[in-house]
């Protein structure tokens, strides 16, 4: 039984009558509602309405949502131009395509079945997405669904939707009303209606959402994309006599919306703008926003701003869906709006434009993300919404490889070049007949038999064809030369694979190898990392909030967002913290998500701290202790280097550059050691390879050593007073101790190697571990010696976790000519997807057992036994 009625909502009820320009069914809409009146009428104050409890006071600023809970978005649908599904729209938003440029106008009145198709498609997507089942046939359909339908456009499609889905709730037509009226109507409906109605479908031009009152959605364990916490709509004065809700906040409508949502401006990290294109109106709207988000209040934190076009009749739902997707998938979207480099309102404001999408991780499981949608139509009417994050994508899917456009691996197994060539030919045939490359790849996991394996790594069917051809041409030459072959794309073949018996070691680089944009797609590939890190107490959220990692500039136009200079290291404590968090996250990817067997680990310099934090059994961080907390790097060992000044009696007014210097020398390590021994204020701090050495100390003595040796060298810009005996041992140990939570020996048997004794750490007591690491920071890092020690214990696979591939290069040089595989999980410009695929390719090519089926099947949850 389908009911299509406009009478289920009271246009003149107590709560409605208090809202000027409130929600009307079209049939009941007063003629004098004057929705087309420009808001800026001289001498006539604008009128606002907002979500609030019917029991609250007259001011919308007064918090009071007791009667009207937040609205949880549990289903969404999109059918706008080329974006015929939610996933396509999400992909466009992430990649920075102007997804919402061609926003269709909201139509009023009957325009026929064809015109209704997008709104019907969007509605059906949203209903399916919300778990409402599927459209029903007339005879054998499911029982009635008590769902209300609000049509903000294409009202005639409402009957079709109700009929196809057996929806028996009221149908309300708000088409022709201002943007946001649909959401407003839904809020009042859910407040006013009996308990048997708890779900509302809102349809607009090319977009639809399904909402429920917050508390009820939560009890059903349903995925919630985001919650709408507040809505404010600005309308013209209604001559009907309805008492308007006054805007009492100094920051206007946007400030009122924040007050209702009980959110402070600095908590809102993203504002989606939907502007009219009229410079005068847009600047007025921006001016209000900049007073709501003042630069002086936010300081360095700043708020990202996004853009979608708007017209009086365009769908605000598209903006809401975009923001809800970003909250759910934990990223700030790229700016896709006009080039505003010259806009003085943005320059100097608290807002910044992101050139590319970037991670946006909630501070903790108990602190949701907050965002706002702010629109200004052609008439200048404004609408403000405040939304907050709810369910994370990572709580639904652990791996999102396809969404991240990650490369596919195809395994070709055989007993020799001839058999491999024959199977490569079969794969080429399959692709030639139109086989999907991802499906072809998945079919190869876990089924192959043979003593040799070629692995193809490709991003598309075409590139897979090319890579197959490349493998084919290299098979025999590689076998003849007994040399492994690796293509630039990551495909590989080894005629002498190391096999699964080689032990796998993780390598933790020094902490000063970070770079702008680090890990930008890590959580997109592996969304499950976020809840996992939250459970472990890892500080993954700090990755997304480091301004030097993801610069926050007023203009994205013409800048080099991915390039920074020395400012990278102005905050070395933060750098160290990010490096540690990043290495911990990648460790989780390799071990927990991809199931790579890790037997041991080693660290370079401060990387030993990352190693212990990532692999030793430990209690979660308490959140209070971090590298941020003191002056270890900024003052004592870095910056003015007070440790040196104190010991050598250097005057305070002496420039920092005259206190300490560091230089990289390209010559034999022992020669350098012998020469340095002749000086009292210069030290060999790092032996990177047998022919690459770093010295540090008094600048004049460093120059003198280089002159004596007459070898190639370059100054090292970043130089801390480390790996020399100057820092006081007990003091250093105490500082490290505050950064290492209580640790105990890894229960999974993982061996941790240290330059303390060039062997395994055998005592896992936080005090002892801190003291040992402190000792390593007072002695030369002899990395070749450490690598040799690890190699002697049977380790053949070295996977560098953390930023960059510095250690990978060093290991390749140290172990040159001996069987080993050294790879980095983080290759700049490749992204996490490309880097991870290359690592998996090399490891599986050599026979390391990896959970490829789980990875390719895109895990919906973490494997059993994971922490």
């Amino acid at each position, binding site marked *: 039984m389908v009911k299509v009625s406009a009478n289920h909502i009271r246009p003149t009820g107590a709560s409605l009558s208090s809202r000027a320009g409130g929600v009307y069914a079209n049939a009941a809409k007063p003629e004098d509602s004057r929705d087309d009146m420009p808001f800026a009428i001289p001498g006539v104050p604008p009128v606002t309405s907002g979500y609030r409890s019917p029991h609250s006071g007259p001011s919308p600023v007064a918090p009071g949502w007791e009667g009207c809970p937040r609205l949880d978005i549990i289903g969404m649908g999109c059918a706008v131009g080329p974006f015929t599904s939610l996933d396509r729209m999400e992909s466009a938003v992430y990649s920075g395509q102007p997804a919402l440029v061609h926003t269709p106008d909201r139509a009023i009145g009957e325009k026929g079945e064809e015109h209704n198709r997008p709104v019907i498609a969007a509605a059906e997507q949203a209903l399916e997405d919300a778990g409402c089942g599927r459209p029903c046939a007339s005879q054998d359909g499911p029982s009635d669904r008590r769902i209300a339908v609000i049509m903000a456009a294409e009202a005639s499609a409402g009957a079709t939707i109700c009929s196809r889905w057996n929806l028996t709730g009221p149908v309300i037509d708000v088409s022709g009303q201002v943007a946001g009226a649909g959401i407003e109507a839904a809020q009042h409906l859910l407040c006013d209606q009996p308990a048997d109605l708890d779900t509302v479908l809102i349809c607009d031009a090319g977009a639809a959402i399904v909402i429920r009152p917050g508390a009820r959605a939560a009890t059903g364990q349903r995925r919630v994309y985001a919650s709408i916490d507040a809505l404010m709509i600005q309308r013209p004065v209604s001559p009907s006599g309805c008492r308007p809700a006054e805007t009492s906040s100094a920051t206007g409508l946007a400030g009122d919306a924040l007050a209702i949502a009980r959110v402070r401006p600095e908590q809102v990290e993203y504002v989606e703008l939907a502007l009219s294109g009229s410079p005068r109106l847009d600047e007025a709207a921006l001016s209000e926003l900049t007073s709501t988000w003042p630069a002086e209040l936010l300081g360095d934190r700043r708020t990202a701003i996004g853009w979608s076009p708007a017209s009086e009749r365009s769908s605000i739902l598209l903006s809401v869906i975009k923001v809800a997707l970003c909250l759910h998938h934990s990223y700030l979207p790229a700016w896709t709006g006009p080039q505003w480099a010259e806009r003085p309102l943005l320059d100097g404001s608290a807002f910044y434009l992101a050139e590319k999408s970037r991670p946006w991780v909630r501070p903790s499981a108990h602190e949701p993300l907050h965002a706002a949608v702010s629109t200004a139509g052609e008439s200048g009417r404004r609408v403000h919404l405040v939304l907050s994050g709810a369910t994370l994508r990572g709580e639904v899917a652990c791996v999102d490889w396809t969404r991240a456009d990650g490369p596919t691996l195809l395994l070709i197994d055989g007993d020799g070049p001839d058999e491999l060539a024959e199977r490569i030919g079969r794969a080429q045939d399959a692709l030639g007949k139109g086989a999907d490359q991802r499906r072809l790849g998945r079919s190869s996991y876990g089924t192959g038999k043979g003593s040799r394996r070629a692995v193809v790594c*490709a991003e598309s069917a075409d590139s897979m064809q090319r*890579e197959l051809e490349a493998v084919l041409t290299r098979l025999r030459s590689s076998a003849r*030369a007994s040399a492994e072959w690796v293509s*630039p794309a990551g495909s590989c073949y080894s005629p002498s694979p190391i096999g699964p018996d080689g032990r796998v070691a993780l390598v933790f680089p020094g902490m000063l190898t970070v770079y702008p944009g680090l890990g930008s797609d890590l959580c997109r590939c592996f969304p499950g990392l976020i809840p996992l890190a939250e459970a472990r107490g890892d500080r993954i959220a700090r990755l997304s909030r480091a301004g030097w990692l993801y610069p926050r500039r007023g203009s994205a136009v013409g800048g080099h967002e991915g390039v920074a200079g020395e400012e990278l290291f102005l905050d070395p404590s933060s750098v160290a913290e990010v490096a540690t968090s990043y290495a911990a996250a990648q460790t989780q990817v390799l071990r927990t998500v991809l199931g790579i067997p890790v037997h041991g680990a080693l660290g370079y310099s401060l990387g030993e701290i990352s190693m212990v934090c990532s692999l030793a059994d430990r209690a979660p961080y308490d959140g209070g202790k971090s590298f941020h907390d003191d002056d270890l790097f900024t003052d004592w060992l870095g910056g003015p280097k007070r440790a040196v000044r104190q010991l050598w009696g250097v005057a305070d007014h002496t420039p920092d550059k005259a206190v300490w210097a560091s230089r990289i020398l*390209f010559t034999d390590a022992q020669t350098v050691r012998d020469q340095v021994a002749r000086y009292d204020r210069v030290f060999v701090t790092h032996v990177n390879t047998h022919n690459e050495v770093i010295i540090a100390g008094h600048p004049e003595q460093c120059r003198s050593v280089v002159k004596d040796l007459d070898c190639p060298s370059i100054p090292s810009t970043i130089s801390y007073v480390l790996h020399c005996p100057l820092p006081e041992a007990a003091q250093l140990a105490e500082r490290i101790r505050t950064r290492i939570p209580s640790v105990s020996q890894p229960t999974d048997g993982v061996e941790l190697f240290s330059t303390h004794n060039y062997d395994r750490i055998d005592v896992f007591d936080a005090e002892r571990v801190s003291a040992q690491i402190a000792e390593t920071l007072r002695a030369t890092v002899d990395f070749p010696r450490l690598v040799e020690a690890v190699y002697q214990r049977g380790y053949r696979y070295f996977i560098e976790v953390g930023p960059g591939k510095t250690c990978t*290069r060093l290991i390749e040089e140290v172990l040159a000519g001996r069987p080993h595989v050294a790879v980095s999980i983080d290759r700049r410009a490749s992204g996490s997807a490309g880097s991870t695929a290359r690592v998996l390719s090399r490891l599986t090519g050599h026979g390391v057992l990896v959970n490829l089926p789980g990875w390719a099947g895109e895990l919906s949850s973490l494997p059993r036994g994971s922490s």
Partner: protein
Amino acid sequence: VNVDAADTGGAFDDGAATRQVDGEEVLLAVRRVLSEYLTVDLEDIRPEMRLFELPDVDSMKLMVAGLRFEHEFGVTFEMDNATATRTVAEVADLATRALRGSL
């Protein structure tokens, strides 16, 4: 290990297929990026100079120049310590080969 891009010294190893890249243009681009980050005239970045011989060079400037090159050309370009012993022309040659394989 015989990596197709291994002869690039590990500085460049992205990409799959090949594309047309003008080596002279890449050399000019490398010199331009270096001159920008070393704040010296383009003429002072001569192809035969080793990176460690460049005026006012240091490890950070090399790294940042590498990042800038990556940003402009979309290839992994780790202008690290090891690269410092190569000449500008050698680095440009490595870049050219990497770019040819980066489609």
